């Protein structure tokens, strides 16, 4: 089983490693870069939501907190992104820990609307804390990453950096998932009271889940800021959180590898649909709807975890 999972990751890595051979267009490379960045953020969401069952519809706030922190530090203090990105991630993780507080008392979909509010507060703060964030104008001229005097500005360089980062992070995600930590998170998802009585420290585990979500999203945001070179409050919309969330769902919720694929696919799909002109968003949302209504996730889950679950319990019809 363990084998199977890493195999899928190899397939993914191999596929995307050779893709630029046929895809020589900078624009599409850029779109894939965004796909990778989104996929990284979605790994966090899979841990938080797919495994631990804590719904966060404000996920993009973590992304934004880190992206803005890193950019502001890099622009104002001219620090290297190698310092500012980790600081941004740290900042976002601190907020992750704070956001876990309502989750101690709320569960399920109730939590989700709280996280919507969190996302909204972050967005409004970014708009209104002008001296820092440049408000609605957004931040320009975010410095690129420099390695040994070499400025990484080419889309293709970022492509490989992000691809490797994504795969490494996916391995970390899988390790968490398949460890005792992952089981504890799953127990919380299944039955919080029983989990606590089995000795699981609920608060600690929930905080862990939120912090790791913030970690992955934060890392994604930090990387994004420096390869896109531009940030504005519009990246923090609820719609963007929803996009990340759809990626997690379409990828099969508990499946990290599945969510990588769906993260990339749902990022590039609208771009490839531009020819539909004013119809494209409508058609895209319809496709998402259909994909969600079809029982894909069971298929992907099977592929990832082999036949771990022999029988699936069935609800009564009524």
């Amino acid at each position: 089983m363990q084998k199977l999972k890493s195999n899928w990751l190899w397939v993914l890595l191999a596929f995307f490693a050779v893709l630029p051979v046929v895809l020589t267009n900078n624009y599409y490379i850029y779109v894939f870069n965004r796909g990778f960045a989104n996929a990284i953020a979605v790994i966090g969401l899979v841990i938080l939501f797919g495994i631990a069952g804590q719904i966060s519809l404000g996920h993009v706030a973590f992304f934004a907190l880190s992206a803005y922190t890193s950019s502001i530090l890099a622009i104002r203090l001219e620090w290297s992104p190698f310092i500012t990105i980790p600081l941004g991630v740290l900042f976002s993780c601190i907020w992750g820990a704070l956001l876990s507080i309502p989750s101690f008392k709320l569960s399920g979909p109730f939590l989700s609307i709280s996280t919507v509010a969190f996302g909204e507060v972050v967005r409004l703060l970014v708009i209104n804390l002008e001296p820092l964030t440049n408000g609605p104008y957004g931040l320009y001229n975010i410095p690129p990453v420099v390695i040994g005097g070499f400025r990484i500005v080419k889309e293709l360089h970022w492509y490989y950096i992000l691809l490797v980062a994504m795969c490494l992070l996916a391995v970390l995600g899988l390790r968490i998932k398949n460890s005792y930590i992952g089981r504890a998170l799953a127990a919380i998802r299944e039955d919080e009271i029983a989990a606590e009585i089995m000795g699981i420290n609920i608060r600690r585990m929930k905080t862990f889940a939120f912090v790791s979500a913030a970690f992955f999203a934060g890392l994604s945001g930090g990387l994004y800021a420096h390869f896109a070179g531009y940030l504005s409050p519009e990246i923090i919309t609820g719609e963007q959180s929803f996009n990340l969330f759809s990626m997690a769902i379409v990828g099969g919720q508990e499946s990290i590898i599945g969510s990588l694929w769906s993260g990339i696919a749902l990022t590039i799909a609208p771009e490839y649909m531009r020819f539909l002109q004013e119809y494209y968003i409508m058609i895209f949302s319809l496709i998402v709807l259909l994909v969600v209504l079809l029982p894909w996730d069971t298929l992907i889950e099977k592929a990832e975890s082999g036949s771990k679950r022999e029988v699936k319990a069935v609800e009564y019809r009524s």
Partner: protein
Amino acid sequence: MEFTTFVQLLIGGLSIGALYALPALGITLIWNAAGVFNFANGEFVMISSFMIYTLYLSMKLPFVGALLITVCFMFLFGVLIEKTIVNTLRRQNAPAIKALVSFIALSIFIRNAARFVWGTAPRTIENPFGSKPFELLPGIFVMPHSIWIIGICVVVMLLLLALFKATKLGIAMRATTQNRTVAALMGVNTSWMVSLVFGLSSIIAGIAGALSGAVFFITLDMGIMFGTKAFAANIIGGFGNPMGAIVGGLILGVTETLGASFISSMYKDVITFTLLLLFLLFKPKGLFKLDIVDKV
């Protein structure tokens, strides 16, 4: 600030709050009945606003007639959504979260499809309640629609309360939510029951749409605002509790209006969401929490 201004703002805020409260109520009802968050509720409001525009302004029906047709249409629309999306999800025994994504996708779909029906231009309709303020108390001028909206909201609330507490139908709706299988064993037509609640909640969205169309502008993305505010209202009021939805909506409306004038209109939304954040941290279950005991 003068006292009269304060009261004027208060009434204005209450009527805005009432408009948030109605969709909030609809969301709560659907949550209670089907365990689904209707993130498309704002878009339901939008649809009915445009319907009112078509019927009342383009086709020149009397307002009440337009309202009735809209409300009937919304009922059918709600039932349709239940029969298609919700039912499919349930047959798959899909987790509540899939429903959540489906409904967000649905909302985006409606928002982007409506233009092909009603065009892209924002619309407005003449205020059917008259656009001349009247003197409610000496020195206090209010718009007639403020009073109408608040009144209608209260009536809807009372009717619902009566339905759920005092009628067998209402009890059966709640029973269906709590345990669908067993409700069926009591002889409840559960799928109809859920459709009914969907229809009901769409009617409420329809009423909100009709009223707000008379006060605000009708735009393709007005639903975003209504959706967000309705959810915020529910957080404040306490999710799953119809009373909470109403009170939450009213608090939200009043806070926005008073906050904008006492502090700064610049930070109007910040004030609102800070209020929300405070609720989340210190009273995450809202004012009227609904505890269905999960006995160990």
